[in-house]
């Protein structure tokens, strides 16, 4: 019989942003023997309430994002029609008038706003001023390459970070310093420059990868590296910090005493502890990937949301900018929901709380750790606070 980390450790670090416990505002957690009523009905009601709250919050976030973006775009100086036509144009006054009329720019601002919201409620994001295409189609078409790029970059970042941290945490100082160095260099290199360096090396000199585009796997390698490397640098740093803290805990000695190898302890026990701060960084990560996509897509001439955003912002293509703002808001809402669920997967104690403590009561060590765990939740370790701040700040 092997004790799981959850049942045998004092949990040196806990999450800064713990998911809400359903028991707090829903019906009381079902009793282990189910005598208080049909369990599934309560669970269902609880889930429904939680989902309802999430959806309402998401809608509020989206409305706020749309309104802020709308106001900000209209506070900027300049006549929208003149901006659409650009600085040197031969368009006649009649053409200008027609554009103004067609885009509804002749109406008062408040009417334009209400009209936009009305359209939005019907799922219509409007039509691009510059590209004269429906915004939903533009975003739909450009979403796939960006998602591919972002996922590939995450894979690159996580693999590199885990490898670097697991291999070097708490090891020889020289090794550590080396890992630290590459991580700092990766974090500090502007991705624009990194992209051009990679292209020069692996596309122009050694013709290993195509220069640009979005067809096929080989075209994804260099952009994913460019976007993923700086992220790997940050993740590696945070992960090593977490690993080293975990490795100092007594449970490591216990595990080693049971005959586990150094690496096995790192991978199976310590890593799990160190993962929690990583998840907390996901908000920052999402922002980095969305923002980084703008540069990476430009350098590598890839289609995608980043390229679309750049084009829309520089020509002040309002409907597209609004569409991208709404998309980003949605992505953040979805990611933060996913993160909350992820905490449950990583940290079994949260699951235990959620389900009520019944099923785990037979585990002795769990009982013993209970008071200490509660305390930990209320006072996150200092390093976690730091990570939490970082996540919110970007």
């Amino acid at each position, binding site marked *: 019989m092997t004790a799981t980390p959850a049942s045998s450790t004092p949990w040196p670090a806990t999450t800064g942003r713990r998911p809400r416990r359903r028991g707090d505002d829903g019906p009381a957690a079902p009793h282990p023997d189910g005598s208080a009523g049909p369990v599934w009905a309560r669970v269902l009601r609880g889930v429904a309430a939680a989902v309802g709250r999430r959806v309402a919050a998401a809608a509020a976030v989206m409305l706020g994002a749309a309104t802020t973006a709308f106001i900000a775009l209209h506070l*900027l*100086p*300049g*006549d*929208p029609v*003149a*901006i659409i*036509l*650009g*600085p*040197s*144009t*031969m*368009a*006649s*006054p*009649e*053409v200008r008038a*027609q*554009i103004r009329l*067609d885009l509804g720019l002749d109406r008062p601002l408040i009417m334009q706003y209400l009209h936009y919201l009305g359209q939005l409620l019907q799922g219509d994001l409007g039509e691009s001023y*510059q*590209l*004269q*295409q*429906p915004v939903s189609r*533009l975003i739909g*078409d*450009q979403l796939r390459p960006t998602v591919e790029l972002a996922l590939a970059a995450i894979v690159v970042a996580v693999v590199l970070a885990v490898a670097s941290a697991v291999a070097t945490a708490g090891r020889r100082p020289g090794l550590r310093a080396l890992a630290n160095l590459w991580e700092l260099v990766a974090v500090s290199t502007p991705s624009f420059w990194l992209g*051009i360096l990679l*292209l*020069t090396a692996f*596309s*122009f*000199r050694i*013709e*290993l*990868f*195509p*220069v*640009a*585009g*979005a*067809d096929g*796997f*080989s*075209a994804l390698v260099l952009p994913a590296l460019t976007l993923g490397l700086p992220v790997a640098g940050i993740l590696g740093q945070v992960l090593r910090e977490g690993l080293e803290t975990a490795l100092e805990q007594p449970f490591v000695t216990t595990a080693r005493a049971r005959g586990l190898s150094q690496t096995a302890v790192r991978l199976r026990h310590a890593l799990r502890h160190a993962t929690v701060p990583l998840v907390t960084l996901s908000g920052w990560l999402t922002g980095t990937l969305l923002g980084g996509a703008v540069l990476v897509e*430009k*350098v*590598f*001439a*890839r*289609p*995608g949301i980043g*390229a*679309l955003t750049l*084009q829309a912002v*520089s*020509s*002040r293509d309002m409907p597209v900018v609004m569409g991208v703002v709404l998309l980003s808001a949605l992505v953040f809402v979805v990611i933060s929901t996913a993160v909350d669920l992820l905490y449950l997967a990583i940290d079994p104690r949260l699951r235990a709380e959620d389900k009520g403590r019944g099923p785990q009561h037979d585990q002795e060590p769990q009982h013993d750790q209970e008071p200490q765990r509660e305390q930990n939740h209320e006072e996150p370790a200092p390093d976690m606070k730091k990570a939490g701040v970082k996540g919110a700040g970007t």
Partner: protein
Amino acid sequence: MRLAKPVRLAFAAATAATLVLTSCGSDSGSDSDAGTSGAASGKPKAGGSLTYALDVEPTCFDLQVNQQGITGDIERGVVDSLVAVDAKGEFHPWLATSWEVAADLKTYTFKLREGVTFTDGTPFDAAVVKANFDRIVDKKTKSQYAATLLGPYTGADVIDAHTVKVNFAKPFAPFLQATSTPNLGFYSTRSLSRRPDELCAGGSAIVGTGPFVFSSYTKGQNVVLTKNPKYNWAPQQAAHTGAAYLDKVTFRFLTEDTVRVGAVTSGQADVATSIPPSDIKTVEADKGLKIRKVEDPGGAYNVFLNTAHGPLADQRVRRAIQLGADVDQAVKTVYFGQYARAWSPLTPATPSYDKTLTNAIAFDPTAAGKLLDEAGWTGRDGQGYRTKDGKRLTLDWPWNPPHTREQREVVAQAIQADLKKIGVEVTRPALDIGAYVSLALNGKYDLYDFSWTRFEPDLLRGFFNSASLPATGGQNAANLRDPQVDTWTEAGAATLDRAKRDDVYGKVQHKVVVDDAVVLPIYVPTKLVAVATDVSGLTVDPNGKPLLFDAWRS
């Protein structure tokens, strides 16, 4: 999984064979002659494909709506025009076999070529010509450029299936040149009935009669053109008849200079446009590439001096600005000697260009200083700038960074430094696009710069006629109101007589540069195109559009 092919090795052998015969290139300034193929080595052969790297991606592919030159570059191979123009400005039959111009220049009657079909199978006839022109001027089309090419168009009459008469409200001489541009090329009736957003999105919605078919467009990536096998109506100046040689042309959008240059030097693109002058040495050193240098026709990169605002209302101050900046040196340094200094608001490749202006406003800081003294700017403030009645001689030259190309901001810095030496302060407020475009309307600037490509001296009417003031949406950034210039530019637009046009447009150029001193021409916009040595027959028409029809791979 598709890896980039190591093309370089493949054509190393071909290079040896063709190099001797392809010595054209960097030293040729007059490559623009339609029909003179750059590398006429061996016998042209059909087949193969070409990857063409561009620096700009169009926002819309509808030639009748969009004003971007790049749209015309891409679709020149997709649409044909009524007439073709040669480097001397002479017109030749294309889709029109002959034409008659009424003495008053108000009607043009075209006899159309028979047997021409669009690539969707529908015939090209008089009704299609009328439908295209009518759509361009339709208010709902919101044409940003093509409509200005049609000028005072009032309508077209279909005389018979292959005769069409185009009518104008006023004498309109620039029309023949206008019909030679891709923007007045023809889409099929089916294309015209598509929704505006479908045409803007390019691809198969765009159907022309040209040697290539617009197969697909992937946003952010490329445009693919494929051969139109039935094509048999190339203009006379083309080197061959029948269908195009190339099976496929892929335009790739590589907006980053380094990436575009890298793509062509590594053989991943066969042609790359807008090679930065600083990279010319690298490209020239590459045995697999040659540089084609083509000066654009139309307006040079000009700085206009606003006569309706501040100190530049005084002609002597304007003249001092023209003489006080060492433009030659600035252009030579910033562009590594690749771009020529401009002396006229028109470029040398434009018909009716006035050669006599060369050195008319050569650098002369002493004369500039004297002029400023005469104008009463005799005081000096603590920073060494000239003052008059306690007010510093300051000129505003606003700019919008995202729309500033070709390191023009560096040229501006050089001019700024030169003018400081004669006691003139030039400020460069960097404006957001919205504030920048409002400038034209409120006139709150002293200097305003832009270039404009078109193979037609009638541009001068837009630049300097008092009916074209920026407040009404025109391009007369100097706010010049000179009755003589008005008369001459209007006379030029009302005649097709070469000698008369040369005369009036020559007078306009001289007047605005020397007497009115409202423009400081800087450099001649020049296309620096890198072309792989195994690509032959690729030419550029006098309108500055690439002609793919005669291009072939060896």
